[in-house]
């Protein structure tokens, strides 16, 4: 191992005042620009103003619902299988309606483990889980980050708590002979 001595111009680098002044001038000019031309200001007044991401943004999950308002999810657990972060846990049960047969009595996502990769959405055969647009979801303690069915499907900002309708309906699939 060897030590390489780098020669730096000592005098010039210790002469810092001009650079600082230049920076302050730049800041002052930017401030004046922002004061007189608010529209072109590059920053947002968060949280009053918020940036709108594209609809393809992968934020917090949404569980979709059927026409009758029940969960579309069939508890096939393909999302839990595909999940690389191991954050989805589902408890399946038997429905009295033979056309539904299997449904989740508990569907929990540990959102702090989630890496928002969207594999669950890709794995789902019935459009039951989607990545939604939200991402600013603070919580007071760790418990607030385990999302259950009520939070995932029927939170207030999803259609006033009625849930997002799924594009896949059992009736139509049965009629089509699938």
């Amino acid at each position: 191992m060897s030590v390489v001595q780098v020669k730096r111009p000592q005098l010039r680098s210790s002469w810092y005042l001009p650079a600082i002044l230049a920076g302050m001038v730049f800041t002052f000019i930017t401030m004046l620009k922002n004061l007189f031309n608010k529209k072109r200001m590059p920053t947002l007044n968060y949280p009053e103003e918020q940036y709108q991401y594209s609809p393809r943004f992968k934020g917090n999950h949404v569980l979709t619902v059927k026409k009758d308002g029940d969960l579309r999810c069939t508890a096939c657990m393909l999302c839990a299988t595909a999940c690389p972060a191991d954050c989805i846990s589902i408890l399946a049960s038997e429905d009295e309606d033979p056309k539904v047969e299997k449904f989740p009595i508990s569907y929990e996502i540990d959102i702090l483990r989630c890496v928002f990769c969207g594999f669950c959405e890709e794995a789902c055969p019935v459009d039951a889980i989607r990545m939604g647009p939200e991402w600013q979801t603070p919580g007071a303690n760790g418990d607030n980050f385990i999302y259950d069915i009520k939070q995932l499907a029927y939170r207030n900002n999803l259609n006033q708590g009625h849930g997002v309708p799924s594009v896949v309906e059992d009736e139509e699939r049965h009629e089509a002979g699938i």
Partner: protein
Amino acid sequence: MVKCTINGIDIEVEAGTSVIEAFKQAGQDIAHYCWHPGLSVAGVCRLCMVEIEGNPRLQIACNTQVAEGMKVTNQSEMVKDAVKWGLDFHLINHPLDCPICDQAGECGLQDQYMHFGKYDPEMALSKVKKHKVVDLGERVVLDSERCILCSRCVRFTEEVSKSNELGIFNRGDRSEIGTFDGMPLNNKYSVNTVDICPVGALTSKDFRFRQRVWFLKDKPSVCTGCSTGCNIDVYFNKDGVWRVKPHHSDVNGYWMCDEGRDIYKAVNPITTDFVGERENKKAVKKPNRILSAHSYHDGKMEFISTAETVSSIELGSFSNPALIVTGQYSNEEYDSILGFWKSKAGGKNIFHWQNQPEQWQDFDGLLIRGDKNPNTKGLLASLEKHGLQAQSQLPSMEGFDFVLVLGPENQWVYDNISQVADQVSQAKKVIWLSACHLEKASQMPKHVTFVPAKTFVEKSGSFTNFEGKVQSFAMVDVFVEEALDLQQVTQWFAGERVTASLAHPWQSVHNEFIHERGEL
């Protein structure tokens, strides 16, 4: 012996062997649904097509016997095409239920499709609708749409259980499995039909929707339900054991009884709807606990006794100790505890606690035996080996100052358990080894101490079955860390340090599948 060539491999098989068996013996894959080694040949699925040299048409391998010099292949294009089309016909009316079908992951159709199919369906008509979620009996649910009419289950009830409940009704594409006059499928071997069903048409009510099969691992073991000692596969993940299935052996063939399938329920730590509750951490933390986890290092946990009463156990100090044994522990454990008892307590006062000994000779002709202990023979052999005598009647326990009870693991076959518990608590000091939580435990007096015992999936050893056959089994997994086997109890009584492996070094991993899979 007959010589033949299977896919270019020369092998010799016994005369009368079918071609499909020759394929199995040569280690070659062959598609099949209806053929099962434990049942008669039906030849209905038409999937085991093979090309035999000199024969212009394809033959089914299950119903063709091997002849001298026969050259058979299932690798040719003609066979592959035939299998593909056979599969297409099977799938015409098969619903795409895979996401909610319990068979997914171990389904014959899925496997064969990935092997031979991979075609785009050419059927333009919609699928025939049949009955779904038909309640066939106490333990089995039928989904007729998924059924491919291989008739394995029908043949099973005809040939093995001989109860003849199932049959195929209607004709053509409206054919369905059903029971005569709606008679329930309630024979004592009904869940075997679920095992042999190559698709998800028959599902077990007990396992239905509980887990996806790819989240489970399986390991071989021996059933502890009765003295037959059926070989089983235990399916488990980190949450516990979820089901057992028969494992082919000379003892049990391909089958096991329904009762034996419930043994896993005694193994799981406390969960809501299981029949028995394990003596788990919570139970151990009750006032009469005796063991606590002491230190964790090198993946091992050391046990130390915490209650004074227990740390001072010195068998020699008791004037009149007694040992109550049940036939539910392994040979190695008996050897260890009986040898210890002989050296420290003079081998006296050994009582063999028996459940309904008058029924022990009962046999239903197939597998179920009246002796509900897996290792009665082993216990008797071990007693004989050590030259000890056991009394089969439990006397009044008042005269004993120390009683060690090796309680049953499968306690619901012991109908006099609460009576014995009362009887035993008359002694001055009692240590009761129990794998399951005893209902009466909370009402028992303070001098009765419960020690959690290991179940058969948590230890290695061997059982001697009714005919004296010694079958060894290996540990499946640890579910209750604090539980001890009898070797450890012996060590503990001898004042040695007891170490046990920790449960689940992969504790944080819920979905093990994702960590093990390579490429998709």
